[in-house]
């Protein structure tokens, strides 16, 4: 059964320096508040996993939480670069960042395999591309029936997965709606999981096939209204595209970035 608690406690009881952590949410329901709490608690040496790192990982990388990033597409969607990510990679600021790079198909399959208790995922992909030569996690198996060669990659098994969702009931059963990305898979693949929700309700008002992660498959649930902002929560609030666009300016400059974090994360 999930423990229903506040965000501060959920993070401090789960996240340990040096762990492998996934904050998932594919453009939607990105757990910004939880990422900010990790920054506030000064966690270090994390291996961060995310299909699309987005602004939240730009902030965590810029604040020195990460030693490694495992990802598929590191950009500010529709806007441009993640400048803190690039500064870490290109200039080692504030510290060097190791990367492990995959395609999205690879990561989606690897999360799914992790959730399924499998040590590897197989799929058809990476044909003819350079990533295949650089990433030694990309291997092959041969289908014993068709003799086809298929890509094999290790499943993803984070120490902690954190996601944001619309609501939970009093028991901690969590309902997710809209674009769900790999959130469910990321939670089920993890050793420990935290879900922040917009609200804890009496009745989830779910339909027969609603996407619900049961309380007994979770570790912590914390009510954090607006916890996905500036990303969005379907049914609650929209995406602040203006913020995403402004982030480009804020993040280009180290000092501007630090003072933004100071005001908007550390002093909150």
């Amino acid at each position, binding site marked *: 059964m999930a423990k229903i608690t506040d965000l501060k406690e959920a993070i401090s009881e789960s996240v340990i320096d040096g762990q492998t952590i996934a904050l998932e949410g594919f453009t939607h329901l990105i757990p910004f508040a939880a990422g900010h709490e990790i920054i506030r608690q000064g966690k270090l040496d994390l291996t961060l996993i995310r299909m699309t790192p987005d602004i939240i990982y730009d902030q965590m990388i810029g604040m020195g939480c990460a030693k490694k990033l495992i990802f598929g597409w590191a950009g500010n969607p529709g806007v441009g670069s993640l400048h803190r990510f690039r500064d870490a990679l290109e200039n080692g600021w504030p510290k060097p960042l190791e990367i492990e790079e995959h395609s999205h198909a690879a990561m989606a399959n690897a999360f799914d395999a992790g959730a399924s208790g499998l040590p590897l995922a197989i799929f058809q992909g990476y044909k003819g591309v*350079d990533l295949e030569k650089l990433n030694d996690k990309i291997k092959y198996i041969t289908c014993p029936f068709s003799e086809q060669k298929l890509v094999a990659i290790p499943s993803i098994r984070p120490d902690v997965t954190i996601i944001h969702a619309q609501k939970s009931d009093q028991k901690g059963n969590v309902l997710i709606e809209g674009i769900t990305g790999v959130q469910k898979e990321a939670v089920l693949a993890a050793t420990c999981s935290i879900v922040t929700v917009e609200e804890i309700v009496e009745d989830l008002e779910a339909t027969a096939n609603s996407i619900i992660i049961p309380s007994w498959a979770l570790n912590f649930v914390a009510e954090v209204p607006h916890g996905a902002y500036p990303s969005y929560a379907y049914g609650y609030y929209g995406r602040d595209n203006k913020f995403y666009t402004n982030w480009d300016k804020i993040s280009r400059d180290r000092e501007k970035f630090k003072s933004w974090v100071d005001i908007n994360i550390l002093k909150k």
Partner: protein
Amino acid sequence: MTKINHTPDEMMTIAAARELKDGQICFVGIGLPSAAANLARLSHAPEIVLIYESGTLDTKPDILPLSIGDPELSESALTNESVPEMFRFWLQGGHINLGFLGGAQIDRFANINSTVIGNYSEPKVRLPGAGGAPEIATHCGEIFVIIRQSKRSFVEKVDFITSFGHGEGKNHRKRLGIDTKGPTKIITDLCIMEPEPDSFELIVTSIHSGVSREEISQSTGWEIRFANNINTTKAPSNIELGALRALQNRSLEATFLSKN
């Protein structure tokens, strides 16, 4: 001839939109592909099916999304599926006719780079990376590429193959066991290129109205060749321009002027 009242980007987007057929199942990326695909849907191809990587199936946005998973996409979709399903059932399962790709560099055999300029381990410019592109490039029936043309973007050899086009040409796709067509049209702000039969080298097959051969040659990092039967891409009609501008204006308004 009437005077030119459109931008090269508008020509590119409209030329790309025209290539789309009603009823096609398209995997669409953000930016230029999304603009072209939605312009087609809102004009001559109302039954085109648009799919975005975020899991939004058959989506009908009224404005152009900024990200691949904007609320507009999610709310107007037939349904929203998980990303593993999107990649496994729909893309790898072979249901997509047409994939759209962009990129920072493209080479004479239509290989695309969206990963890095310079050396991978010591990048001059680090780009966002692969995302869905490597598997879109091999699983969709065919690929259209939309990309602005310049010597920096059209290079003899890309610094990094993020998505495989026609490799080193000829039957390279077949040799790798890829049975889809790969890039069949490259739509730029100057022209349309297609892989030449047999060699699979990109050649210009249509020059946008008002553009010269010299301009194209000077904006290409290799000695670009022109098809024997070359077409001229018709300038955008007022109807096309009107539709595109209306779409872009209401998108800008919704994205940046809304109170959220």
